């Protein structure tokens, strides 16, 4: 792989790691591991941990994929590997 190819792949992996970090925090973190503590906080009529497990993480997943798709498009153009 040439130099710009390596840099491209590194940029891709960094983006994936960032998106996955948020993904992990909202689902496994807020939805499961820290749900009991978060349940002491209320979001409207929802206990917060319960909200993350049954509503919140899903909204965030949807946003994440579109943000990822957008940023990947930018990385593709920056390294000039986008589809013609």
């Amino acid at each position, binding site marked *: 792989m040439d130099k710009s190819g390596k840099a491209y792949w590194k940029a*891709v992996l960094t983006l994936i790691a960032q998106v996955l970090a948020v*993904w992990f925090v909202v689902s496994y973190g807020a939805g499961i591991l820290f749900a*009991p503590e978060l349940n002491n906080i209320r979001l409207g009529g929802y206990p917060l941990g319960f909200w993350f497990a*049954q509503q919140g993480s*899903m*909204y965030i997943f949807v946003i994440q*994929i579109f943000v*990822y798709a957008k940023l990947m*498009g930018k990385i593709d153009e920056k390294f000039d590997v*986008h589809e013609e």
Partner: protein
Amino acid sequence: MDLQTLTYIVVGLTFSLYVGIAVWARAGSTSEFYAAGGAVHPVLNGMATGADWMSAASFISMAGLISNMGYGGGLFLMGWTGGYVLLAMLLAPYLRKFGKFTVPQFFGDRYYSQAASMVGVLCLLMASLTYIIGQMTGVGVAFSRFLGVSNHTGIFIGMAIVFMYAVFGGMKGITYTQVAQYCVLILAYTIPAIFISLQLTGNPIPQFGLGGDFVGTDMTLLGKLDQVVTDLGFGKYTETTRYSTLNMFVYTASLMIGTAGLPHVIMRFFTVPTVKAARSSAGWALVFIAILYTTAPAVAAMARLNLHATINSAVKSGGDIYATESALVYEDRPDWMKRWEITGLLKFEDKNGDGRIQYYNDKSKNEAFNAKAAAAGWKGSELKVNADIMVLANPEIAMLPDWVIALVAAGGLAAALSTAAGLLLAISSAISHDLFKNILMPGLTEKGELMAGKITMACSILVAGWLGLNPPGFAAGTVAIAFGLAASSIFPALMMGIFNKKMNKEGAMAGMVAGIGVTMFYVFAHKGIFFIKGTEFLGMFGGKANFFMGIEPNAFGGIGAIVNFIVAYIVSKVTPACPEHIQHMVENVRTPRGAKAVDGSHAH
């Protein structure tokens, strides 16, 4: 017009729509049969993926399960949606760039061996066949309840319908049929939910209603539910975990990885025109899925509250829940209970002989509660409710108009049929394309392969029907295991194929075999070898269920996936390195440019 006639009309209309679309979208080439010609718009592909994905288990069983499990049911919600994030980032765009029809073909090329492709075919068949059992039993339940036919007749009708559009239309027919099926199933799911949310909270949007106040009180709906279920000896609705935090963690992971590894979902991303479209299409798929999945917890909580309120009048009035007159008199039970009693999914047994129904948790370990129940003269819970009826009976419980009930029937059937069709395509393409065309009969012409695809599709429908008639377990249980099998075999091998260019064929194959082997061993230990009753071998482990760190068999795919990664890594280090040209191919797959050039087969 009576309900039965109305149901026939609504279901009949939706079925003629599906068949009409199938006639319009006949597949004329293998590219159309396997990948719908490779030109489906990402939004339409997202809808089709949503229908493909949301099965009888999502539509019929999931809300019922959450309703029983409370907070712990969140593992289904997060697990079955979080996998799309993995799919969008780790697999879909790269597999689209690779540009072949099937998952085993990727294994065959990336791991430069027909043996790897064969292992892929076997893993795919294990996962897809396990999955389709759940779909066919779901078809049977839905048909028998709604069309008033026997379970067996229901399955035969389902087979005939799928046959009509899947065999002739292939992926192209299935894609456009699934778009229609998505529209039917999402309307059928959300309309009753909106009605019920309005009744219970005054808010028409179920997602907000779930966090709203219970009508006529200043208590939140969830607070009310927490109070009612704890009064009846159950665990607190918003806090009950599934067995343990670790089990819930692993179960969620297993469903996420399984989602990203299920071949019938992955195949849907071969149908879009570009790599960019593959990325955004995963997002659209999740948007359409989330509409149902964020509604489901509201349906679950509201159905649970409605059920308790029907049986115990003190729930709504706020009176004494233990008073004799609070319990529903059996003779006065509503019509929907009578209808479901016929199916055997709802059972009443008057244990204390007072002619009234007491429904509570008779296995409660709470001494104070048990004393109150005993003082009230309760001698055990008298109602058995199958989780599967929660969604199907919901409109009847809330006394919604007949046309809504008929629509739910059509939605349940759409969900089961669309997933069955997607799975059948994955199965038949693995056999006709990977086994016959690429391994056994390389000289097969395109016309011959198309014919082989249609014949294997027809055979697969017969096998699926037979499995549906002789199901080895209940619908939702087998579905979770299918995810475990996909999670432990297909996902890790695909991911390493893209992200670790040094991964060689020996490592990938050893990993898949070890991962699926460990998972099957654990599942079979609990549920019998190939789910045959009486062949369980839990005795080897002192008869202790969930013997590995308290993890249940449905969740074990997460552990299987870890085993897969570790074994693959170790084996790849001690066997010959991956050839140079394969490493170059992986580098090429990683960049989007030239997606159209790579897959000449998609040109049309």
